[in-house]
């Protein structure tokens, strides 16, 4: 007999026990583990999706902010460039104006210096010439410079030709004649001058001392003037000295 019924029953029982054991130790734990892992994976995937969506949103936000920032930056940069350009133009203009004013001031200063220098040169030249002349006259003629000056002045009056005398006399024969000198004239010299004038134009004479004439003497009669002064001689010296100073300024500018 191939079938042993006790064995059949025993094997059925064995199979049922094995079924229970495997359900308890194999299928349930494994299926639970798989379910738990699937749930966990699903949760992680959902979490990842949420994070991805959030990251996408943040990325868009960031992009928007970045674009806005770029626009703002470009705007600010353009504004700053415009302001810089304007400020540069303004500063250049101001510098140019300042340079112009400085140049004008410098030129004015140079001009003043030139004038002062000219005056100083003229003054010194006159003083030197006067001193030289005084010394020379004193040494040579043994008379004072004033006396020689008056002498020359009188000679000049007497040397006036007829036409000049008529011009002076035609103005007004009775008009007073003003004689201005840089120094006080002595009585002798006054007398010498009065004689010469009366002889030439027959008018009354009035004397006046004007230090500005600088070693000179002049006759003024209704706007007409006969004069001798060292200033006349100094004019040429002054002119040549002025040319020297002017050339110095020109070379300084260049």
């Amino acid at each position, binding site marked *: 007999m*191939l*079938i*042993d*019924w*006790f*064995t*059949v*029953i*025993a*094997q*059925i029982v*064995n*199979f*049922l*026990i*094995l*079924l229970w*054991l*495997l*359900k308890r*130790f*194999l*299928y349930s*734990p*494994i*299926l*639970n*583990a*798989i379910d*738990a*892992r699937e749930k*966990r*994976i699903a949760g992680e995937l959902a979490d990842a999706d949420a994070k991805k969506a959030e990251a996408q949103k943040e990325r868009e936000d960031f992009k928007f902010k970045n674009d806005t920032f770029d626009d703002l930056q470009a705007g600010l940069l353009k504004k700053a460039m415009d302001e810089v350009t304007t400020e540069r133009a303004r500063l250049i203009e101001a510098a140019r104006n300042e340079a112009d004013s400085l140049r004008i001031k410098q030129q004015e200063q140079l001009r003043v210096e030139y004038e002062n220098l000219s005056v100083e040169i003229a003054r010194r030249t006159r003083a030197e010439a006067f001193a030289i002349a005084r010394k020379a006259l004193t040494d040579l003629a043994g008379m004072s410079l004033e006396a020689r000056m008056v002498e020359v002045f009188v000679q000049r009056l007497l040397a006036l030709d007829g036409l000049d005398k008529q011009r002076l006399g035609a103005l007004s024969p009775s008009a007073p004649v003003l004689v201005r000198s840089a120094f006080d004239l002595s009585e002798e010299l006054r007398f010498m001058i009065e004689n010469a004038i009366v002889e030439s134009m027959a008018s009354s004479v009035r004397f006046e001392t004007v230090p500005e004439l600088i070693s000179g003497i002049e006759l003024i009669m209704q706007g007409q003037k006969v004069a001798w002064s060292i200033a006349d001689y100094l004019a040429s010296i002054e002119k040549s000295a002025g040319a020297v100073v002017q050339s110095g300024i020109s070379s300084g500018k260049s």
Partner: protein
Amino acid sequence: MYLSSDELVLWQHGFFKLNVTILTTWVLMLVLSIGAKLITRKLAEGMHISRWQSLLEIIVTTIGKQIEEVGLSHPEKYLGFLGTLFLFIALSNLCTIFPGYEPPTGSLSTTAALAICVFVAVPLFGIAQSGLSAYLQSYLKPTAMMLPFNIISELSRTLALAIRLFGNMMSGTMILGILLTITPFIFPMIMSMLGLLTGLVQAYIFSILATVFIAAATRAREES
């Protein structure tokens, strides 16, 4: 010369006895249970799992997929019964690689017991799925005249299940034994390897047929 390991009785007391079939079955039950317990003792639910856990998960999910492919929509309900059938028969057949091992499936008593289990489980699953009357009515389809044929079909397919597995395993063992006496060296080894393949195929056939029967019983309700 014996045809079944039932005949090798180790202990007997009246009706009760302990033969090699039962003893081997106990050993296999212990191996399966302790192995499952050891592996599932430290189950990981995270992304990193042990190789053994991975192996068990592959086995369980593959059995589940096979059940689903046959047509049972909720494989977890049938996984215990069908999975145990497959694992027990497969392990029982694979152990033929060990010398002196007598597979329990080479005993008609064991295959008959398993076939009886299937014979009982099919209507139970059918009734659980569709109710008693609906299940019984499925025997009257397509007409009431088919009732005896349906009953004969139930019995014959159960008998076929038992005989097929027994015949294959017993013959495999027998052929191996005979070949050992004729050509003791190379040829039995090849046959033994072939026996492993046929053993797995038989385990697959037995459990897949049981699945088909259960599916037919539960589908009767769904169709009606």
